[in-house]
């Protein structure tokens, strides 16, 4: 157990402003990176900004452990007039996730960008990446529904552009980014329409205030429509099953820096926001909320987990396999949340964290190898383990974790999910999980078989081992997969407090 209660990561003067600095630090770094004179400087700025944000996130974690909830009033106007940041156990967990993913990705970017993007664009890429980070962290930190929309847009717009510059390596990045842009914009628009309705019904934008006022309202058609719009909008952003069409392309064709960061964070924060709305903002007791969770969310999550796992099994490109896998894993997470018990939510959130770690490991290992190889298709990775053993082993660790092999974090995540489902008496969830895990296992097996057990065809381009700058963060991540597989008290603690924060006294 890590005693967050006694964690004083930063001096008090900084800690007092930590929730805000966590968001603004990457923003200022983004501006600075855009102004930077050279690629190298912008990279340093990017690393500094990300590390600072992560540091502040840690400071917030200490505060939240001590006080339960951290509120930070902006502009001196308390809500509902002003905007306040509101971070509880759930927010801390996701914030730590996003900021540490940011640190890892920024460390990695020093090497990857040089081969993937023209030198003149580096400053702007770093800037865009930091903007993404700002958006995601802001989205997590804020306690205001409209403010969340603004940050959602900050992160999305940064992402669209960054996905599109994969163009240099692959022209398919452009349609993928366009697809992502359209879907993302529809999602954001739906979300903001929903917020508009909720504002019309409650007259406030602050989430806590909105929740308090919604609890006193009858189910009017405005509230229900608002709920529908918010959930569908966030569902698109979170790549919930039938709304996931944009994700495989966006993850597959973007420069590796972006896929790494996106895979670990983007859908997770949307799931976070959706959970906040479904369980916190809307009175969960409301008939439509419960009906939604039982009859829409859970079945869709289950279908997504199975269908997308199947798609991953039959996919040919390795990054698309991982992307479909991400959609499927979103299904796992939502299944856990849809149990609507503290145990279920905790398991779902644990899975969320585990999956983020797993996917960032996988994408980074892949990116490291693909830097020299330029390969995409599974067959082209044949025999890579011989040329790049370190990357391949890290990939294998991540893949094992994804498949849920014991002694890895992924196994414990699956364990907790099944345990929660059994405890909630949802046998069908166990069945779905088992089937989807099996399919996961199949596509993981395919990838590993290609990388480890097949000889490279003669004359194929040979991979080189990734540079140390890539291997270092990669092995930190792979090591974490194993470490947490042996001692998961840290993520468990975070997930438990997050679940308690989310469901509170609810059953």
């Amino acid at each position, binding site marked *: 157990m890590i005693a967050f209660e006694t964690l004083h990561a930063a001096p008090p003067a900084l800690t007092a*402003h930590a929730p*805000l600095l966590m968001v*603004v630090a990457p*923003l*200022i770094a*983004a*501006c*600075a990176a*855009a*102004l930077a004179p050279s690629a190298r400087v912008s990279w340093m700025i990017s690393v500094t900004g990300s590390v600072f944000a992560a540091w502040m996130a840690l400071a917030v974690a200490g505060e939240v452990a001590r006080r339960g909830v951290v509120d*930070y*009033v*902006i*502009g*001196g*106007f308390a809500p*509902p*007039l*002003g*905007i306040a940041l509101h971070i509880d156990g759930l927010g801390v967990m996701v914030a730590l996730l996003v900021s540490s993913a940011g640190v890892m990705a920024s460390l990695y970017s020093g090497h990857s960008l040089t081969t993937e993007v*023209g030198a*003149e*664009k580096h400053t*702007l*890429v770093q*800037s*865009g990446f930091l*903007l993404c980070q*700002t*958006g995601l962290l*802001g989205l997590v930190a804020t306690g*205001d529904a*409209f*403010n969340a929309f*603004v*940050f959602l*847009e*900050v992160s999305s*717009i*940064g992402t*669209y*552009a*960054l996905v*599109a*510059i994969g163009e240099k390596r692959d022209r398919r990045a452009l349609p993928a980014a366009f697809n992502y842009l359209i879907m993302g914009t529809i999602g954001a628009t739906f979300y903001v*329409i929903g917020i508009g*309705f909720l*504002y*019309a*019904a*409650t*007259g*406030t*934008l602050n989430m806590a205030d909105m929740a308090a*006022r919604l609890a006193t309202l009858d189910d*009017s*058609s405005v*509230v*229900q*429509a608002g709920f529908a719009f918010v959930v569908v909008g966030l569902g698109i952003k979170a790549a919930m099953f039938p709304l996931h069409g944009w994700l495989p392309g966006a993850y597959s064709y973007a420069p590796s820096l972006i896929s790494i960061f996106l895979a670990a964070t983007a859908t997770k924060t949307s799931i976070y926001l959706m959970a906040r709305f479904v369980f916190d903002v809307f009175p969960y007791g409301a008939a439509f909320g419960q009906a939604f969770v039982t009859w829409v969310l859970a079945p869709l999550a289950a279908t997504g987990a199975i269908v997308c796992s199947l798609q991953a099994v039959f996919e040919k490109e390795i990054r698309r396999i991982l992307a479909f896998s991400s959609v499927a894993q979103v299904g796992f997470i939502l299944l856990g949340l849809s149990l609507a018990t503290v145990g279920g939510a905790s398991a779902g959130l644990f899975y969320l964290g585990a999956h983020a770690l797993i996917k960032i490991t996988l994408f980074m290992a892949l990116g490291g190898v693909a830097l020299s190889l330029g390969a995409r298709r599974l067959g082209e990775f044949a025999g890579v383990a011989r040329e790049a053993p370190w990357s391949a082993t890290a990939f294998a660790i991540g893949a094992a974790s994804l498949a849920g092999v014991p002694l890895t974090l992924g196994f414990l995540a699956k364990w907790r999910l099944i345990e929660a489902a059994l405890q909630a008496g949802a046998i069908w969830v166990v069945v779905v999980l088992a089937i989807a895990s099996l399919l996961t296992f199949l596509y993981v097996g395919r990838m590993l078989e290609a990388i480890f057990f097949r000889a490279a065809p003669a004359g194929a381009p040979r991979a080189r081992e990734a540079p140390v700058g890539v291997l270092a963060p990669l092995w930190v991540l792979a090591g974490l997969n194993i470490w947490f597989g042996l001692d998961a008290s840290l993520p468990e603690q975070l997930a438990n407090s997050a679940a308690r924060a989310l469901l509170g006294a609810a059953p």
Partner: protein
Amino acid sequence: MTALPSSFDVTLALDIVLLVMLLVVAGAVARTRSLLAAIIMFSVYSLISAVWLVVMDAPDVAFTEAVVGAGVSTIILLGAILLTRGEAERPDWRRLIAPALACIAVGGLLVFAAIGLPGLGDAASPANAYVGRAYLEATPKDIGMPNVVTAVLSSYRSFDTLGETTVIFAAGVGVALMLGFGPRASLAPPSAVIGDHHVVPRVAAKLLIPLVALFAFYVQFHGDLGAGGGFQAGVIMAAAIILHALVFGLRETMAAIPPRVARSLASLGVLLYAGIGVICMMNGGGFLDYDYLFPPSVEQQIPGWLLGDSEHAHHWGQHFGIMLIELGVLLTVSATMVTIFYGFGGRTVEAARQEAKQ
């Protein structure tokens, strides 16, 4: 609903006319295969909605809609179709089924929601009775500014505005990343063909551009009192610059404001905004708490009569804070618009071919 039946009727009639026009134009956009026509009609659509927004008593939004929707984005879209064919292919009707169904579902949901919505301008509706009223009551005391909209945007919800400015900056970064590099053709007419018909726009533009810029500044600084503010002013300023580029050629404008400078200005704007927030923080307040904009030592230097009576204390901080962040917004918005225009402008087919050859 308002008490006066006559004004009610006029508003309703206007609403109906404008909305029908919007519908017709939207239908026409969907039907036409000519991209040029579609762009022009989009511009018309924006203008009509701007008018409609004025009727709805939202002049700030109307401003923005008119400048961005009808002005700048039309130019950018025109720049974009230079690179493609002028006609869109007619899609297979089967591919339209799913989107149509989705549209119908969304429309149905909207209508369903509208049933429960309070009436327009209903003073008892939650939106007006709760926070809306509170803003109206608190603004004179907290901010001391006649325009409540600006007070809400720039002070109460200044964090949102920071976010929105960041969105614009992000859009600029995005366009610069995708289109900001590579060869450009000058938009100026070849010097050999400069004939009579270019003289008129040149002369007119020379007259117009300073006026437009002046108007932008007016909008910027008038924001405290009436409709206006950094966003609108930024777009108007950008329109002036774009007009310059259209008439005198991209190369001339780029010489005056190089793309790199434009990008830097955009980021400087956000930096200014966030910097104000950080300064407030360092002076002991919260982020963007303008009451702490001036450190106490400075605050003491301000003569008492300037601070006003006790009920209106500290408004200097608010005023200066709002002015500075609006300046940041102006910078970012105008620089981003120019960056986006640079991105699309001059990417003629020939230039694209040259790029492909390289």
